[in-house]
């Protein structure tokens, strides 16, 4: 049975229709945490976050506290919040920016204070027109409240926060591409090393990049202490996490559940959560962690949803998305569509990603729409191997960023899990589901 008694940490205001307004925010404990943080030394605030063991919610799952502490050696110049959320089937940041923008802004200010950064940016996906308006409004409100600007809340600390709209490019979710976008350039991920923007980030200066959800957790952590957060979940995966459930389920949506304490089955089937597969059909596969992640079969439905638990089984919690494919879903079409996404979203720098994604997409298209050949499966696997040698997990890279090495995930999963479906496509001369 699902464990649903954990506190709502980031989605506590979801019940209110006016959850995005300052009035509601102040009524429900808004800015208490920031005031508290300002009475603490910055290091003490950072220590709470460290104690919380808050794993980054953007995809890579790097502990926020560790990221910040790497920077304490060199003072950070900029804080950048990643709200580019474009990983297919991920929509939890969308929920946060539209429904609780003040919580995000407060979290950003707390982080800025902990890092002693005076200039922060929230990079929001351009297609979030409403989200942009709501976050900008929240920022404006925060300025008039005295929570942003010079000497906030009468403290010695000043901070400026700029809301930066993206313009439609998935790759700008990758933190170095995002920084390029923030510098007004095309979103080409930067070469690594340096591996973290912490070393050279925005304008070549040390920069912290954190996800919207990561930031939104901070007010609660400051109010309740890092230990309270760490008490939730198991092992490295602490606290709660937002999961965006989509695909062939009765109740798709964003659900905040405690880490590790619930399984994929809980998320999909609990009546308070996914409510089961549409029409009571069987699960054919699930895509955990966004389309960059390798797929799971129904055999792994009882896997606890924790970072390491999922990692050990060869996939990832990634962006906090779970897509359910049922027995009527065509896996070839699904994998083709995902490759098409990568092909359209490859920034175009690295040859394997730029050319490989297009090639694989076209071959997959043939399989799905007619013209597939039996040898195509081997060809596809070999092309995948040329992009991510060894097809292991975590993938090896031939490219600058991991978008490239994510391309093989779905194709490799689909071919290895469902070879018969591919053969059926070849024999049928296209998709047998059509």
């Amino acid at each position, binding site marked *: 049975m699902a464990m649903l008694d954990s506190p709502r940490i980031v989605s506590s205001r979801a019940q209110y229709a006016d959850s995005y307004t300052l009035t509601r925010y102040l009524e429900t404990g808004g800015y208490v945490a920031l005031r508290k943080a300002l009475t603490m030394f910055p290091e003490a605030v950072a220590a709470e976050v460290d104690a919380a063991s808050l794993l980054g919610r953007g995809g890579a799952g790097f502990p926020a506290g560790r990221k910040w502490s790497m920077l304490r050696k060199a003072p950070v110049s900029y804080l950048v919040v990643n709200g580019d959320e474009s990983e297919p089937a991920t929509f939890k940041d969308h929920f946060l920016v539209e429904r609780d923008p003040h919580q995000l802004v407060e979290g950003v200010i707390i982080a800025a204070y902990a890092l002693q950064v005076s200039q922060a940016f929230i990079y929001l996906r351009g297609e979030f027109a409403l989200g942009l308006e709501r976050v900008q409004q929240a920022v404006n409100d925060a300025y008039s409240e005295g929570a942003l600007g010079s000497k906030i809340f009468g403290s010695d600390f000043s901070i400026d926060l700029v809301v930066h709209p993206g313009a439609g*490019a998935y*790759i700008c979710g990758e933190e170095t591409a995002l920084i390029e976008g923030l510098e007004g350039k*095309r979103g080409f991920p930067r*070469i690594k090393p340096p591996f973290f923007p912490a070393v050279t980030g925005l304008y070549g200066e040390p920069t912290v990049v954190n996800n919207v959800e990561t930031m939104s957790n901070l007010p609660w952590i400051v109010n309740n202490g890092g230990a309270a957060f760490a008490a939730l979940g198991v092992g490295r995966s602490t606290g709660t996490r937002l999961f965006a459930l989509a695909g062939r389920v009765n109740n798709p949506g964003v659900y905040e559940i405690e880490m590790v304490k619930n399984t994929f089955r809980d998320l999909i089937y609990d009546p308070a959560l996914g409510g089961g597969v549409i029409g009571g059909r069987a699960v054919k596969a699930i895509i955990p962690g966004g389309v960059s992640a390798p797929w799971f079969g129904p055999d792994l439905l009882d896997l606890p949803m924790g970072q390491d638990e999922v990692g050990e089984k060869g996939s990832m919690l990634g962006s906090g998305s779970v897509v359910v494919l049922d027995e009527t879903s065509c896996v070839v079409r699904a994998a083709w569509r995902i490759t098409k996404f990568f*092909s*359209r*979203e*490859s*920034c*175009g*720098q*690295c*040859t*394997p990603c*730029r*050319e*490989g*994604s*297009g*090639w694989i997409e*076209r*071959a997959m298209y*043939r399989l799905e729409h007619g013209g597939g050949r039996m040898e195509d499966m081997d*060809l596809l696997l070999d*092309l995948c*191997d*040329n*992009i991510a*040698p060894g097809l292991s997990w975590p993938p*090896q*890279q*031939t*490219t*600058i960023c991991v978008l490239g090495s994510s391309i093989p995930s779905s194709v490799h999963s689909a071919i290895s899990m469902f070879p018969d479906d591919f053969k059926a496509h070849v024999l049928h001369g296209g998709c047998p589901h059509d």
Partner: protein
Amino acid sequence: MTDVIRTTVNITVNGREIEVKAGELLIDAAERAGEYIPRFCYHPRMEPVGMCRMCLVEVEGPRGATLQPACYLHVNDGMSVCTNSEKVKKAQDGVLEFLLANHPLDCPVCDKGGECPLQDQTLAHGSGETRFIEEKRHFVKPIEIGELVLLDRERCIQCARCTRFSSEVAGDTEIAFSGRGDLIEVAPSPDKPFNSVFSGNTVQICPVGALTAKPYRFSARPWDLEQVESTCTTCAVGCRIAVQSSGNRLTRVLGVDSDPVNHGWLCDKGRFTLDSIDQNPESTDVLSAATRITTPLVRVKGVLEPASWGEALGAASAILRDASATPGGVGAIGGASLTNEGAFAWERFMRGVLGTENLDAQFGDGLDPVLLQALTKATIDEAARAKTIVTLTGDLREELPILFLRLREGAVSGTSAIVEFAFGPSALRSLARVSLVVRPGEAHLCARSITDHADAPAGVAFSNEELLEARRLIGESGEGVVFVVGRPNFAEDPRVIENAIRRFAERYPDARFLVALRRSNVAGALDMGLGSQLRPGRGYDAEAKGLDTLAQLEALRRGDQKAVVILGGCLLGNVADVKGATAALENADVIAVTGHGGATLGYANVVLPAAIAHERSGTVTNIEGRVTAVTPKIVAPGSAWPDVAIAAELAEQMGQSIGLSSVEQTAKTIEETTGYPALSVMNDEVHDGAVVGRSDASSLRHALDPMAFPGIRSAESVGLASYTGAIVEERAQGSVHTRCATLEDLANAEPLEVPLADSYSLRLVVSRRLYDRGVAMGGSPSLHNLVKPTTLGLNHVDLDRLGVEEGAIVSVTGASGNVRLPVELNEGVARGSVEIVFGTKSATGEDAVAVLYDPTSVISQVRLESR
């Protein structure tokens, strides 16, 4: 206690331990150790981008061996690398296969076919069979992205070499990547063609046939070509080049990477002007710069008629014998386009045979050669690395484009601060720490306000803070400062700028100077003694008295001087005072030694055809005093001779000898009698640059960027001594009796009478652009379309004040009449001035400079009427 900084580290490549420079890139370190790692996007002169992924190699790390790109991985001690494992091969083959997936298989019709790294790689590694059965990406066939460059997008492999060149090296970002993913393409702005003066470099560094040069396209196949290493003489920077021909036809010039000079880059004028050298049979009018002079000409009954060498030399010697009977009756003007050997021969002829001291290698558009000799010189490298660079020149991108690139590098990287004396528009402006906009006639006063902390002239556009900042950057003694000095305004008495230069030289003993005069071998010609008081081997004789160009013209007009020998170049095309020069030539016997036609020949009695660039051997000296060889690639057309032969035969004809018989022997004589380096600079056995056969594939490895042909290592990079500045002086001092001029040798500067500006007049700035109607452009069918008609450049403040609209045609009145010119808004022009570009013509064919220039005054002033 001093920390020992390790400059080398040890790494293991394929099991072999090698010592490499600390922090260098793995791709370079491995290459020097003999392990060539394939690559497409990496260019050693630009920041690595790691885009093509061809250079993946296995590097040992904490998580075992992983594939890493060698092009941006810096070596560190103990690094262990494998470049030839199965895994590496599979990854590289995979990248190659991906690159070829959408690449057209049109090698047989591709310009790059035969010298294409992608083709080479494919032949060496590719499986030969394509697994790609999908439809290839299609684009409309080649588009002209500029006047000289075509882009075939299908062939592009997205390596970003061209776009990086444009933004990183040239700094003009005229082309950029557009789009995303596999739709990414290189694109100029739709309304602005890619006409950067550096556009040809993108063609040279393109690793495939995506960018091609219009002038070269389809003109030859690489295996038909032969090449030699030489030096570009289009301007005075001295870029190292490979000159290629197919048979006796020049086909292509490519940049060779010379570390101290051009870094492999060339400007488009230098790169593409070769069709002005190759005989252009369509043009026969001797008054046109597009015409090659291929046979001697003698004026018979007012008309220049073809003649034999014997007849022509006879006619010339008669004229010279007559004229030299009177003291000062003869002189020579020009010589900057000669080789050092040619200049040396003519110097021997003029001084030795004719006994005249009336010599001047410049056309009155340069600077006092004694002052130049007296300055402590800097090399280009020193200038580019100087703490502070002070420029007193015109727009360097237009005058000496590659020098601009080199100085830009220092400014962009932050190692140098630029203090600019700005006389007109300048590409360095946006990079300069301080830009002092100087009006005509005031450079010396502005210099004084820095050197003597004096007040700046009233009404200047710069603030006291800027002045202070300039002073601070120059410091007390000028240590670490390089002054780049030239001739920014041809409508201004040269003494204004000379006075300023001298002031700086006297005030800052530790400063160095780089002389940014633009005409090809002007430094060499002066070093060979083509100037009164100058002596071969950069020598000086204070006792000698002779006339410079302007004084000779004056003497010719007065009839004191009877005859003049014009040594290369068109005098009338190069002086501001065209009227005065014409009057002088009309009044004189004129012998022109030249490779091209031109207006001057309208007054010549005898024309002697000379071999020019790429047809002659010898040495030239660049702006920094570096002596390098020029190598002939083709045979001069018709019966043109090398200058040494002409001077020697003419002497013979007059019953004398200059003791010179061939270029080689002349070079030797120069070295023996003056100590000045000549052809021996190229004698070193190790140097493989003199002649490189195209088939010699191993020589490819020597080039810094093997992706961009010609695969020649420059003379410098193989460790040949370079002879610049102080070294030349030292060598010369040791072996001959002449000495170098010093600042003390300069006469006291006379005060300059600069007329006061009235509010109706505007001061005239006549500046240079790269693209003018000179021989290089005017004679080149591929380039001449790039020359713009004359316009009148004005600042918006003056435009508003005068109530004229941009583009309006106005009447401008100057010293000898008026012309009608369109007005162009140009914020680089100082307030109260107008700018006209030298060597251009108005839409109606008028030479505006000739009309507006005032030879009687320190500055020229003009008036505008908007009707």
